[in-house]
């Protein structure tokens, strides 16, 4: 099912939690709502589920306007951050609950439940109570309960935040698998950019209730609209160096050399030069010089930290001979290098 939101807004008194957000979420896709805490992503999820009424704007499921439809009539599946399993029911009873509400006879609902139980692999602990399950198991149960009524839309609120690091990686792949197999349009909320980029088809990045950018992971990484997006996505965090635009190019604070870019910017504009670690190359096509401060082994590659201007830059290199203290020439590849206006964060290049 395709989900369309138009100018969706939620105000709590004077505070605007979600500010005129519009987007189209395509059928069968896995979409991440990404942003730092308090950016309105859970509020948005709650409006989609119908728990929270919206202040302004419209929500459409396919072509149907569901803005004023209450939560119990929207037919969405929702998994809470704390899973919200009913503590007095067994796993099987929890999973069957949505069908029990609909008055499906017991035999039939168990039959239906078993299909999803096999999909999610919880068949070994059907008779246990939620308190007797681990976090990962509880989450599987919660997802099964959300899927059993065949929702047109599955909403997951920080589904992985209560799990330990190893399980988190395992479960996010699991969520991807379940989503693919069931084919249900899924929207999940997360504050972890790595989680969002690893499994989602597209990401909506929010900041203080305002939509920053909505697109595929590659869009957001390679083509950020502003500094916030560039800074929020990518590991390691994007390099940032403050400086000014002179006639021909960018001059970092405390440096004299000009890094030229083919773009028209008024002279004297305060800028932030940003580049991905993987967009820099050492001792090739030199555009400026920098001193190596630190080096780390990251898998097969070496990650070095370079001193440049008043800041530092991270870069990958395969050159094993580089030592701390060396002065190296730094070149740039034709992707992953941006210029942002310092004040507004607007992208200029």
């Amino acid at each position, binding site marked *: 099912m395709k989900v369309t939101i138009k100018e969706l807004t939620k105000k709590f008194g004077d505070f605007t939690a979600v500010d005129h957000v519009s987007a189209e979420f395509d059928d069968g896709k896995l979409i991440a709502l990404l942003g730092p805490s308090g950016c309105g992503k859970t509020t948005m999820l*709650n409006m989609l*589920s*119908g*728990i929270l009424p919206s202040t302004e704007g419209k929500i459409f499921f396919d072509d149907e306007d569901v803005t004023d439809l*209450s*939560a*119990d*009539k*929207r*037919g*969405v*599946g*929702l998994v*809470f*951050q*704390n899973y*919200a399993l*009913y*503590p*007095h*029911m067994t796993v099987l009873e929890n999973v069957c*609950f*949505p069908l*029990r*509400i*609909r008055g499906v006879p017991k035999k039939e609902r168990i039959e239906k439940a078993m299909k999803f139980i096999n999909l999610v692999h919880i068949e070994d602990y059907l008779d246990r109570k939620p308190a007797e399950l681990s976090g990962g198991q509880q989450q599987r149960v919660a997802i099964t*309960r959300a899927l059993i*009524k065949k929702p047109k839309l599955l909403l997951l609120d920080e589904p992985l935040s209560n799990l330990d690091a190893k399980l988190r990686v395992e479960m996010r792949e699991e969520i991807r698998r379940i989503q693919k197999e069931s084919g249900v349009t899924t929207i999940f909320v997360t504050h972890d950019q790595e989680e969002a980029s690893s499994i989602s088809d597209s990401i909506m990045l929010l900041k203080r209730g305002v939509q920053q950018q909505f697109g595929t992971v590659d869009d957001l990484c390679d083509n950020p609209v502003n500094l916030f997006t560039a800074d929020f996505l990518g590991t390691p965090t994007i390099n940032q160096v403050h400086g000014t635009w002179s006639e021909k190019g960018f001059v970092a604070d405390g440096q004299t050399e000009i890094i030229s870019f083919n773009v028209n910017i008024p002279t004297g504009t305060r800028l932030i030069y940003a580049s991905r670690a993987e967009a820099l190359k050492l001792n090739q096509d030199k555009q400026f010089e920098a001193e190596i401060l630190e080096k780390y082994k990251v898998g097969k590659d070496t990650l070095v930290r370079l001193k440049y201007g008043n800041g530092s830059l991270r870069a990958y290199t395969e050159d094993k001979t580089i030592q701390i203290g060396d002065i190296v020439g730094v070149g740039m590849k034709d992707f992953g290098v941006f210029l942002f206006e310092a004040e507004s964060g607007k992208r200029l290049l």
Partner: protein
Amino acid sequence: MKKKKLSLTSLITMTLLMCGAVIMIFPFLWMILSSLKTQVEVSMIPPTFLPSNFTLENYIFALKTAPFARYFLNSLLVTIACVVITMFTTILAAFAFSRLKFPGSNIIFSVLIAMMMIPFEMLIITNYTTIAKWGLMDNLIALVIPFTASIFYTYILRNFFLSIPDSLYYSAKVDGSSDWKYLWWVMVPIAKPTIITIALLNTIAAWNSFLWTVLVINSTSNRTLPFGVFAFIAEGGVRYERLMAAATIVVLPMIILFLFARKYIVSGVSKGGIKG
């Protein structure tokens, strides 16, 4: 050294608790033992502890002279009616005050809590006039109607309901549940221990209700057990061994209930706080 000190304190605690237990249990024991004695032995000085020859005659007399079976049935009917209706209203009110948002809910709840300060004795006159006006005097229904809601139990249950996470409610809502189904399928089962506790406290209160019963009930056939025992003394004169037999008949069901539901009563009183 430390261990010895610890065992000494626990010894003192145990001794004190045991004294307390003896003080609490002795009257009951004395009541039961006296009910098995003859008239002569009951008034003997020095008193005997165990009856020299057990007799069930007092019980037979009590059951013969007064219709205790009828009293028992009346008590049972009244108690069940009070408890079932009170639990129903309590659960609904607790749900409304904990979950539903309606204008003035806080004010209404505060007013109700304030009303707990009015002692029952103050209400007797107004209740009496109402019951009389409705023509329900000397009717078992009169024993039920004033006791079909309890602010105190509502307060306890509301606080428990408030401790149930909101996410369960929203989850049920998204799953298509109405408030009514959520209440009976999710909240009530989760609150079962609390509900059992207040139901037990309510049972004991209803079973022992005396003052109100004496005021509104006249005929023998409508008496409840406590009133029956009172009438038994008033009408039969003071024969302690017979009185004790009658009293035993009255408290026995409650003692049995207590033995079975001890866990809930104790946890209810210690968790819920102040009132028994």
